[in-house]
């Protein structure tokens, strides 16, 4: 597995784990409180921070355990990266229509912030999965 492919696995894992943890902590802490009244901001910011830190630390850990023979992307990595980012960009563009509509309809900040976070997670996951399929099946 190449350096960049390992990076995509780590990125995918850290993003999904952080989002899953965010949902569990946010919804678990809600109890009988209506969702828009939850103090979600600290949990959301911690989840994003943990996701970024997890990506960096995970990548370092994997390189210590199973070092790659090349520690930079090559032309194939760049081709696959562009392809994945192109599809992820479309997902992001379409997905952001949701939060935009929520904002126009003057929904609570809770729903807008969570919709934006969800779209970012979906575009990250789709982009990473597409890149991993390209690595595995060919491009």
């Amino acid at each position: 597995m190449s350096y960049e492919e390992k990076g995509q696995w780590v990125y995918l894992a850290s993003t999904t784990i952080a989002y899953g943890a965010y949902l569990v902590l946010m919804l678990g802490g809600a109890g009988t409180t209506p969702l828009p009244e939850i103090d979600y901001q600290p949990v959301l910011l911690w989840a994003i921070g943990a996701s970024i830190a997890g990506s960096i630390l995970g990548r370092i850990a994997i390189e210590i355990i199973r070092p790659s023979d090349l520690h930079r992307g090559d032309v194939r990595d760049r081709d696959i990266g562009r392809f994945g980012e192109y599809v992820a960009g479309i997902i992001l563009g379409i997905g952001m229509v949701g939060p935009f509509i929520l904002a126009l309809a003057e929904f609570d900040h809770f729903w807008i912030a969570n919709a934006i976070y969800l779209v970012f997670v979906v575009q990250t996951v789709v982009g990473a999965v597409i890149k991993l399929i390209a690595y595995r099946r060919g491009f």
Partner: protein
Amino acid sequence: MGRPTRVTNDIRRLRFGQGEMTQAELAERVGVSRQTIIAIEQSRYSPSLEMAFQIAHVFGVALDDVFHYPTKSAEESQ
């Protein structure tokens, strides 16, 4: 899912003809990862024209001695 590229190659044969050159050695000489050489050998990745020339230069042969693309008549006869 079928092969993502119709470009075939003789890299494996050429490597063995060059004193059993490893994929890692070829990768180092071309400046790519070993996984990229594996993907090209297995026709899972079609290299750029520049990389194709680099690979041909490593073996000291012409481009079409390394890479092949099926002609329409060849496909129809299959």
